[in-house]
């Protein structure tokens, strides 16, 4: 069992969770992921590392409650435990020797982009950061990213933070005004990574994207996570999860990503009902016990 040490709701959808896993904490590097299973009936889900503290023996994950498992996960509290927490899986992002980088995070991807930006910054690389969210209430890691970047721009789809637009607009501007990046790193929705890669390609800037396909074992066994890179299929779990953005077939990745959409929707609806009613039960129980105390 892997004890949960801390849980923090970052916004209406996103939760940060600190899990005790001392061996993994010693080994995991930016870009690598863990696979967790909540309980005996649970599915294995991959989550790329947000932060690791080898001294404390903890690994931090950040997730969005969008599917049955993440909805369930978001109901857990400090003191609860996860049945399984395995890793590190995948390869660390290749960040060695980079001098001038632009790190781009879209939505939840920002949580994964953060350790990469931080690592680059700590190594003396000059880091620009662009992040994008649907609206200002969903903005993540703004202060943390500001602290490890020399330039930071937050975009929102609805312009509610004053910067309306997609992440590729400021990227394009920075490139054209001579930013001279030797690496652009994009983590976020497939469609965002696709357009980042299209933006950097004419300039020949090395672009890494972090793919997050459907995965079952995470050890190279099942092939569920295959991503078309150039002419061949690669396994995101053992060959990735980072790939050359100029070679990834993003349209194929988008098709593959929805393979289990119907199952996921059914499970999500069931989970919403189940955990909402459990929350009500808890509230009712809490109310009942406080009433008893008062009496």
């Amino acid at each position, binding site marked *: 069992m892997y004890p949960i040490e801390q849980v923090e709701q970052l916004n209406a959808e996103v939760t940060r969770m600190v899990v005790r896993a001392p061996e993994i904490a010693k080994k995991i590097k930016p870009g690598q992921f863990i696979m967790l299973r909540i309980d005996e009936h649970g599915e*294995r889900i991959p989550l790329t590392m947000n932060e690791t503290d080898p001294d404390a023996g903890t690994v931090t994950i950040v997730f969005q409650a969008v599917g049955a498992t993440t909805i369930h996960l978001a109901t857990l509290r400090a003191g609860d435990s996860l049945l399984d927490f395995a890793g590190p899986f995948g390869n660390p992002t290749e960040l060695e020797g980079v001098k001038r980088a632009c790190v781009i995070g879209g939505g939840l991807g920002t949580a994964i982009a953060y350790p990469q930006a931080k690592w680059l910054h700590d190594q003396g690389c000059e880091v620009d950061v662009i992040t994008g969210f649907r609206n200002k209430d969903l903005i993540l890691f703004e202060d943390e990213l500001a602290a490890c970047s020399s330039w930071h721009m937050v975009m929102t789809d609805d312009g509610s933070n004053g910067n309306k637009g997609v992440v590729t607009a400021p990227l394009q501007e920075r490139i054209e005004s001579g930013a001279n990046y030797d690496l652009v790193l994009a983590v976020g929705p497939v469609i965002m990574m696709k357009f980042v890669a299209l933006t950097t390609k004419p300039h020949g800037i090395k672009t890494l994207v972090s793919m997050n396909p459907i995965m079952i*074992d995470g050890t190279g066994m*099942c*092939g*569920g996570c295959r991503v078309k890179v150039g002419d061949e299929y690669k396994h995101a779990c053992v060959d990735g999860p980072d790939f050359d953005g100029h070679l990834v077939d993003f349209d194929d990745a988008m098709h593959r990503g929805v393979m289990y959409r119907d199952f996921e929707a059914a499970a999500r609806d069931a989970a919403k009902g189940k955990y909402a009613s459990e929350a009500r039960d808890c509230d009712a129980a809490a109310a009942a016990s406080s009433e008893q105390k008062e009496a």
Partner: protein
Amino acid sequence: MARVSYETNKQQEKTPMPELDPGARAKCFDEVACGYSAEDAINEARRCIQCPKAPCMDGCPVGVPIPQFIEQVAHGNFAEAYALVKDANALPAICGRVCPQETQCEGVCTRSRKGEPVGIGRLERFVADWAMENGVASDSADAAQQPEKDLVGKRVAIVGSGPASLTCAGELAKRGCAVRVFEALHKAGGVLTYGIPEFRLPKDLVESEVSQLAEQGVEFEMNALVGKLYSIDELMDERGFDAVFVGTGAGLPSYLGIEGEGFNGVMTANELLTRVNLMKGYLFPDYDTPVYAGKKCVVSGGGNVAMDAARTALRLGAEVHVVYRRSMEEMPARAEEIHHAQEEGVIFDLLCNPVRVIGNEDGWVTGVECIRMELGEPDASGRRRPVPVEGSEYVIDADMMVIAIGSKTNPLIAQTTPGLEVTSRNLVIADEETGATSKPGVFAGGDTVIGAATVILAMGAGKRAAAGIAQYLLEK
């Protein structure tokens, strides 16, 4: 004195094994073969004529004393029979079910010269199941061997928890070593757990074999992917293991390399079987992992994994076509598996080969284009080489396709273990007798050495490597 201590049964055929009705079982995951009753077992055991040469024993990779245990069964001494089997074979309930007995012990049985061989596999299974049901399992295993004092306290790390690893772990624990098994997944058993379906090998049985090892003192560390979480050097230098056994199997899927393999609805047998066996996808939504099943499924391949995949897809509700490029005669799957698949309604499209997967605009498979084949001259494997018949392409409409054409070794251990020599296919090079690799203290066996093969060959290798490791530890 008579050679045979019981009255032999002259019956030419094996005592029939009760099986679930094909129509009923094609809709559920319950075990197909129901096992012998005590009466069936005694009846079948008495078909053994106790021939002095006992060729059956040479046919057994782990050296089960076959005539001896059968003699005990014939007399109804099941506990004695179990002790004999268990001493040689760490996983008898599993071998009795999944061993290809027809090419091993039963393939050379003297009785098979005229009629059917003795049902050795069925008897082994009966004895193991009887022991489990009557709770004598762990007692006899403990009594079988005393720990050796020079091995007590020696620490051995076992990487992987499939049949080779479990056998190696059990042998070394019996001899007194402190054994710890490292498994990347959340459940032990390797292919026994993620690969072989419930209807052929019930998972509670695998769990029971694993917990017996735990009772013998073997420690299991789950969620530990060696090569990522710990390297083999770290296990030896920092964590104090005196020797390491690598039994990581052949877990990487092979692809056909044809157009359209990325369409949704196309999956490897490993994916289908892992979703169903390890994650219990067939019980979705009670279990959280879903598994997609189409209306019509093409399975490409002709081995045991292809049969497992076909019969699994069938149970999920699909009409299943196994597409195999040679004829039935060359099919590598066990005859029993092919027979069971046919009985359940799997359709075999022989002498044809997929050349292209066809899909729709949404990225879903809609059909598999195949080409007819004919058999030419024998190839290196001795089987007649299939040659495509030009212009014979045709399309099977399908909304699901499973690729079951074999598996490869995961390169992770090779990549992260300096000094460990591997072949160009990433197979670990190991001595056949001792399992010793090019790296001192590191041993290997099973599919990771010989490529995808059978459970029993892996167990044989695990057993020999255990002897090799013990020898190494005693000399060290």
